[in-house]
């Protein structure tokens, strides 16, 4: 073919050559002229969540655990505020394998991503959950993964699918397969009933950790997610306990005179920071070594110092103090010394919690109409109020720093809510019996 063309070219009349060359030169010139790309600048966008379709997973033969895995994933992703799921009735098809996905159909349905998957029973009653994540715009498969476990862990597997999808698209680890602890209060004074509960991060799958007729307060997760420290008034006086979540095994670590409260685990899990009132009744911050039982005093001030929280590097602690007349947040070295004031906006900033990367401080702030959850950027001091309630309390960061859980009071009854750190997405956790409060978000891998 080429040879023929060359021969043909040779037989052309010579005068054709210059004009042909001229044409080529002009063509090249034209091509060069348009070579520079058209420049466009985009400075704003839409604050809409990412459209995604989570197709119902194929159930295991024999029905499996009957859990709607895709439904759990959809709830997780939508709850983060970063995703908006395509309603099932608008799905163009129900593929369960990546080969069956027609990307154009899903793109046409407005979904940038599609998740398909299936549940299968493998040996010894173990279930396997497989899923694929496909970008419908590019046709690229972003993830293919399998999670296995006993039928009882199917919900956890679903959360792990959510985590993987979240991470693949946003580049941040999802915190769906984590747990929360909170306190549930039922009944009215004096016949109240207190329960310490551990549940999935979406509020499902609750497990009773402690049941008491006396107040339970301030649950705190150990860094490895195995232990919970909490305050219990079961002996009429306050005491700090640590309990192994899986077995219920527990021990009393502080039942000193006066207040024993607000336990916080050091990042290495070896120490607990506590608020101790002592016989004088003036609360200060102490650090208790869990192995040696030795106690170190960090603050000594006539004002109230309470609610300690370790910085992620373990070198300092944040706490609340009213030493300047109103509650504000201070930072003190883990070796003690003079505390440094951190918050300056408003007359009430309390209950500090630090994000895992150490860049942001969540707190309760009195902002106009009420006590609300706010976040302060530690580097700049910039504060933004996230929640809109009247009595929002006890903020706790998700381990990925993307969301906070906190307690709120509506109609006189306490409930739990989450809010994204940009303040755009809030979610109320499923209504429980009674009132719930004091949430604590556990670490990854619990």
């Amino acid at each position: 073919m080429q040879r023929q063309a060359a021969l043909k070219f040779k037989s052309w009349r010579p005068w054709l050559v210059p004009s042909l060359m001229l044409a080529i030169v002009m063509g090249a010139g034209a091509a060069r002229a348009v070579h520079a790309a058209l420049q466009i600048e985009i400075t704003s966008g839409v604050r809409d969540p990412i459209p995604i379709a989570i197709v119902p997973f194929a159930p295991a033969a024999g029905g499996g655990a009957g859990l709607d895995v895709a439904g759990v994933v959809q709830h997780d992703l939508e709850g983060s505020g970063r995703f908006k799921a395509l309603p099932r009735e608008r799905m163009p098809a129900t593929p369960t394998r990546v080969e069956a996905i027609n990307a154009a159909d899903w793109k046409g349905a407005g979904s940038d991503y599609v998740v398909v998957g299936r549940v299968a029973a493998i040996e010894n009653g173990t279930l396997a959950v497989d899923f694929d994540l496909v970008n419908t715009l590019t046709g690229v498969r972003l993830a293919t993964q399998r999670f296995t476990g006993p039928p009882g862990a199917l919900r956890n597997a679903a959360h792990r699918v959510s985590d993987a999808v979240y991470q693949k698209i946003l580049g941040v680890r999802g915190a769906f397969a984590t747990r929360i602890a909170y306190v549930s209060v039922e009944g009215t004074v004096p016949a109240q009933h207190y329960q310490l509960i551990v549940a999935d991060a979406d509020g499902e799958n609750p497990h009773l950790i402690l049941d008491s007729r006396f107040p339970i307060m301030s649950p705190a997760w150990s860094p490895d997610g195995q232990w919970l420290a909490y305050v219990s008034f079961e002996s009429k006086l306050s005491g700090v306990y640590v309990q192994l979540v899986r077995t219920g095994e527990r021990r009393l670590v502080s039942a000193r005179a006066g207040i024993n409260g607000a336990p916080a685990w050091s990042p290495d899990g070896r120490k607990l920071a506590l608020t101790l009132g002592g016989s004088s009744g003036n609360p200060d911050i102490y650090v208790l070594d869990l192995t040696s039982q030795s106690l170190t005093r960090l603050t000594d001030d006539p004002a109230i110092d309470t609610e300690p929280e370790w910085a992620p590097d373990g070198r300092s602690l944040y706490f609340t103090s009213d030493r300047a007349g109103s509650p504000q947040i201070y930072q003190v070295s883990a070796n003690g010394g003079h505390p440094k004031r951190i918050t300056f906006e408003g007359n009430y900033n309390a209950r500090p919690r630090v994000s895992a990367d150490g860049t942001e401080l969540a707190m309760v702030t009195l902002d106009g109409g009420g006590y609300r959850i706010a976040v302060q950027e530690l580097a700049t001091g910039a504060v933004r109020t996230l929640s809109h309630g009247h009595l929002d309390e006890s903020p706790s960061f998700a381990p990925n720093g993307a969301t906070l859980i906190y307690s709120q009071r509506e109609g006189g009854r306490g409930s739990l809510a989450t809010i994204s750190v940009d303040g755009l997405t809030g979610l109320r956790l499923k209504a429980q019996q009674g009132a719930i409060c004091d949430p604590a978000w556990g670490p990854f891998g619990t």
Partner: protein
Amino acid sequence: MVQRASDRWISIALSLLLHGALLAALVYGWMMFREQRRTPPTPPISATVVDARTLKGLEQPPAPKPAAAPEPPPPPEDVGPPQPTPEEKAQREQVEQAKEQKAAEERKAAERAAAEKVAEEKATAQKAAAEKAAAQKAAAARAAAEKAAAKAAAERARQDEQDRKEREADLKRSLAAEEHAEVQRNGAALATWQSMIQAKITRAWLRPPTAKAGINCILNVTQVPGGEVTKVSIGACNGDQAVRESIEAAVYRASPLPPPPDPSLFQRDLEITFKPD
């Protein structure tokens, strides 16, 4: 725009160079052609067309007429040694004289003939020389004429080239002027197109919370006529994964991109900068 102008100048320079080269090649080729016509190659076999009848005549020459045989001279009489008589002496002398006269005449004639011959030869030589000179002169003249013709041809070629150059320059000037006018005319249309694309991508960009001020990401996008986006590649970008995914998705979601108001403005390559404020 600066880049575009320099590109155009490079194109023009390249085009000029090539045109020059083409012209040179054309002129050279034309001159070679002329040269060849001036000195036709000697054919290996030359032939002259002659009449066949002539050839026939030549083949059969007329038979020679037998000429009358000359009478042999009478044999000399043996008369013995002649005895001169006064008469005879006088006769002899007369004869001698006549002989001498005749010899002289003959000598003279011979001399004359020789002279004539020499003259003739000389004349011939002179004529030949003259002819040769004439031929040489003619050749020289012809050569001169040819040279002049060649010179004229070269001059004409040069003139042609100059004319062509001028025409080309004119064309280029008018093209440039036209292009300039078009650029001005198209400037507005191009800006319109840019803002149309910008608006569509802005609507399509689901800006993640991490796309804060200070984020600056460049996307190189290829579209085909009709506006369908066929390729997106992320260049320099200080955003996180969410930002990267979102800007890539934004361009694909905006596909097909709006067409330019004037189809001739279409460009395949777009450089899109995401610079949230």
